[in-house]
């Protein structure tokens, strides 16, 4: 910053090339080194500030990652619920104490002849023990090949806990939730109207666990009236 100004001043004091002085004023080596040192220190200070700020900003961004992941899972679960259809042999089921949610839907798949076709696909969401914790898994299997032949399996999120439940109404009309919905009895609707997931993520923010209870409504489904 100083260099152009000083050079311009020295040129002005020289009064033009016609009267060139014998000694042109300028900067000594010490002055140049001092200026460079100050410049480097200044740039270093600003860079340190920017790096510290970026780190803080990234750490704040990471704190909402579990929430964003949870929101994406909920959207996917909702889309799956909306496409659930009743199929004999694969009832809409909540079992294993609410750890497993199972239903069927029609999905376009690639046939053995390489041509696209539609098949009944069994979709399973399950809270499984993985290592020290739990994970929400999503499996897909062709219904005709059975549950053992899972052709797509994904780990959606690490969970501290998770549970599915289905709504029913009691004799007084109050809403209650059950974690067992597995019997294809004639009086049971194939697809329930209200399904809920309660989940807690292992990460914490501000001392609070990341927990969420989210209900999904299937307008085509029905509410089971609990017998007294």
């Amino acid at each position, binding site marked *: 910053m100083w260099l152009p100004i000083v050079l311009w001043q020295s040129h002005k004091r020289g009064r033009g090339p016609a009267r060139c002085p014998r000694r042109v004023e300028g900067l000594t080596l010490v002055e140049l080194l001092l200026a460079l040192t100050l410049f480097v220190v*200044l740039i270093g*200070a*600003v860079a340190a500030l920017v790096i510290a*700020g970026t780190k*803080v900003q990234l750490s704040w961004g990471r704190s*909402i990652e579990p929430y964003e992941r949870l*929101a994406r899972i909920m959207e996917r679960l909702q889309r799956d619920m909306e496409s659930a259809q009743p199929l004999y042999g694969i009832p809409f089921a909540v079992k294993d104490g609410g750890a497993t949610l199972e239903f069927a839907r029609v999905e376009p798949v690639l046939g053995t002849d390489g041509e696209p076709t539609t098949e009944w696909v069994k979709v399973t969401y399950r809270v499984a023990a993985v290592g020290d914790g739990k994970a929400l898994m999503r499996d897909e299997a062709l219904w005709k090949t059975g549950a053992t032949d899972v052709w797509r399996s994904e780990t959606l999120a690490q969970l501290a806990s998770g549970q599915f439940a289905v709504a029913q109404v009691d004799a007084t009309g109050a809403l209650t939730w059950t974690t067992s919905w597995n019997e294809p009895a004639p009086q049971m609707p194939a697809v329930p109207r*209200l399904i809920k997931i309660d989940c807690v993520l292992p990460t914490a923010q501000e001392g609070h666990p990341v927990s969420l*209870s*989210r209900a999904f409504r299937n307008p085509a489904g029905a509410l089971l009236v609990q017998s007294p």
Partner: protein
Amino acid sequence: MASMIVSVAGALLVGGLVAANRSTDLRLHQILSAQWLANQLALLDDVLSDSTSTSGTFLPLDDATWALAVEPADDPLKPLMKATITVTRKDLTSHVVTYRPVAEP
């Protein structure tokens, strides 16, 4: 000169951090509110009645509350009632509007 530059850079940095913090908080509120509103909307009865809950909290986050306000809808939805679900957390609010019939007495 150098102190001025460091001061300006620091002020800009602090301003940026405050804005980023506010943005993160708003994003968090947006994510949670969308889930809470979707949850309450799913639980809202197809037909509104006197027994329909009109307020509550989201445990374990007691600082987040929801409320349901019901009022007559304007034309052309006049036979229906306008139900507004509002989620409030700290000083931030979000709402969703739906239209439902009311149970005949």
